[in-house]
């Protein structure tokens, strides 16, 4: 059963406004646009090359080859980088705006507009990514939003040496993800020793908030590799504080989604007016390996639908535009009508040409459409206010 997503009128206009604002934001930061095919080879979406559950991918067969309908933009971009952009100077900055399709969920078609920063590692890349994420959400028109930051290295390293079955490790991951401390304690109850790790894991669900959480995190997380991840995250948060977006940032050391995919910092965005994530992404490493490239990359996608939900809820969505003026011409007015229309359009007005036979009908139609003004040319030139909308 597929949820219809016919986009028109105000919703389409709101989405376009957001997409244009994001495009301008990315372009201004040196990102180049890229688009990828609708159909891709299924094999590309296996293993750690994607965070997606294969069940969520639409598959079809052509000549015995299993193809997928683009379920994600990152893996195809990785393919292009791995096979065609091998000589390009690094890092690569790419942005995209395209639909992805997911089977089996409440929404099949999702509009995503995001970036990939490929071949840059270290804190400078992470700072740029988060600053761009904040810039993108602001540009999209959101005012009340937060960006959460986590790090895949924390949980991964804390459980690395624990004597847990794969099943229990997954149960623990899910409990941390759901911030279900009771369940975390239950799973860890069977683990003997490893106090350093288990104490940290027990507190992990609660370690989220502003910069203040790092004091406790540093006390608790002593496993060297996990502590290194915490230090990295703290450094990113500190840097973002200097950039003035510190109050938008929430550190969440218990972020453990897609642990097989992300290798470093993870980020997510939330905005008032929607319960969905408006943005998600992070650092991934396995994707380019299948093309023989040892490149790490980071990126995020903005969920255009969720952004528009939030904007609509806050009365901030861009509505479909109504023309400023409708021009009607009489028997001898053709040339003047088109010349005047061109002048007005050059001046930034939206001008609609009437196709109706009479001026009376034109005024009535303009009123119906909410157009405030009709210009009649050919014979006596005059402006008629319809009584709708704003005047010019």
């Amino acid at each position: 059963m597929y949820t219809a997503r016919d986009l028109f009128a105000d919703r389409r206009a709101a989405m376009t406004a957001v997409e244009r604002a994001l495009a301008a934001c990315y372009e201004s930061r040196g990102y180049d646009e890229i688009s990828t095919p609708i159909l891709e080879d299924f094999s590309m979406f296996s293993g750690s090359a994607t965070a997606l559950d294969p069940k969520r991918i639409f598959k079809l067969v052509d000549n015995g080859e299993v193809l997928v309908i683009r379920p994600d933009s990152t893996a195809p971009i990785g393919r292009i980088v791995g096979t065609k952009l091998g000589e390009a100077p690094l890092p690569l900055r790419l942005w995209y705006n395209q639909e992805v399709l997911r089977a089996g969920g409440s929404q099949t078609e999702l509009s995503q507009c995001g970036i990939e920063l490929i071949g840059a590692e270290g804190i400078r890349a992470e700072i740029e990514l988060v600053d761009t994420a904040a810039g993108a959400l602001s540009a999209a028109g959101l005012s009340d939003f937060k960006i959460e930051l986590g790090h895949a290295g924390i949980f991964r390293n804390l459980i690395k040496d624990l004597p847990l079955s794969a099943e229990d490790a997954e149960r623990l991951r899910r409990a941390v993800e759901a911030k279900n401390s009771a369940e975390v304690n239950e799973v860890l109850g069977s683990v003997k020793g490893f106090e350093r790790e288990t104490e940290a894991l027990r507190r992990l669900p609660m370690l989220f908030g502003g910069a203040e959480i790092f004091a406790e995190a540093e006390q608790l997380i002593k496993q060297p590799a996990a502590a290194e991840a915490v230090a990295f995250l703290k450094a990113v948060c500190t840097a973002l504080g200097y950039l003035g977006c510190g109050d938008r940032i929430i550190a969440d050391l218990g972020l453990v989604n897609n642990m097989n995919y992300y290798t470093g910092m993870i980020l997510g965005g939330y905005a008032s007016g929607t319960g969905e994530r408006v943005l998600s992404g992070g650092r991934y490493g396995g994707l380019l390996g299948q093309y023989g490239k040892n490149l790490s990359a980071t990126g995020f996608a903005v969920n255009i639908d969720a952004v528009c939900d939030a904007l609509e809820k806050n009365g901030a969505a861009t509505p479909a535009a109504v023309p400023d003026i409708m021009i009607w011409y009489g028997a001898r007015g053709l040339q003047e009508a088109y010349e005047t229309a061109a002048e007005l359009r050059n001046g930034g007005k939206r001008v609609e040409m009437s196709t109706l036979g009479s001026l009376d009908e034109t005024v009535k139609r303009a009123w119906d459409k909410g157009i405030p003004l009709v210009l009649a040319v050919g014979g006596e030139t005059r402006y008629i206010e319809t009584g709708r909308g704003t005047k010019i």
Partner: protein
Amino acid sequence: MTPLRIAITKGRLLDSSIALFKKVGIECEALERPGRRLILPLDGGRMEAVLAKGEDVVTYVEHGVCQLGIAGKDMIEEHPSNVFEVLDLGFGKCRMAVAGRPDSGFFTGGGQRRAATKYDGIARAYFRRENMDVALIHISGSVELAPLLGLSDVIVDIVETGDTLRANGLEVLREICPLSARLIINPAAMKLRKSELDVYAKRLEAGLK
């Protein structure tokens, strides 16, 4: 800022929720006399309460139209979502179990087996974990009828006292998991309104001791 909204499961969980609210000093007079209103003031108007069926509580919180919810663990398990499950409220205790006639041979036989349930998701996951091929029959009312009518070999359902089972010659064959009411929170709200949510979560937690 709009008041925080909490979705509460109607019925027994509501009674226990009211008792907990009173214990920790959250004013909840309107909950005791809801009348026909669907959205009720709570904590002197600082919060709003929505009364709903358990599965809808999870849905409201998942979509963020309610920031908090009180729902049974059965509903949270049956409707996988990304909500945070921050507190075991300790009330509404019962268990999810496979029940049937003592002599059903359900767990020893090898033939085609059938289970009737309201909880298709939980049952499917359980039998898959146990490597058992079981055909599920969805029933929305009195599930205990299914084995009595010969529709299924067993049922997968919530068991509290076991009285209904015993009255119909059935008993618990295997326990799947213990259940109780949980405080759930929408992830976006948790990030956007952390300080307000913290206050309520801490107050409720204090009432459990």
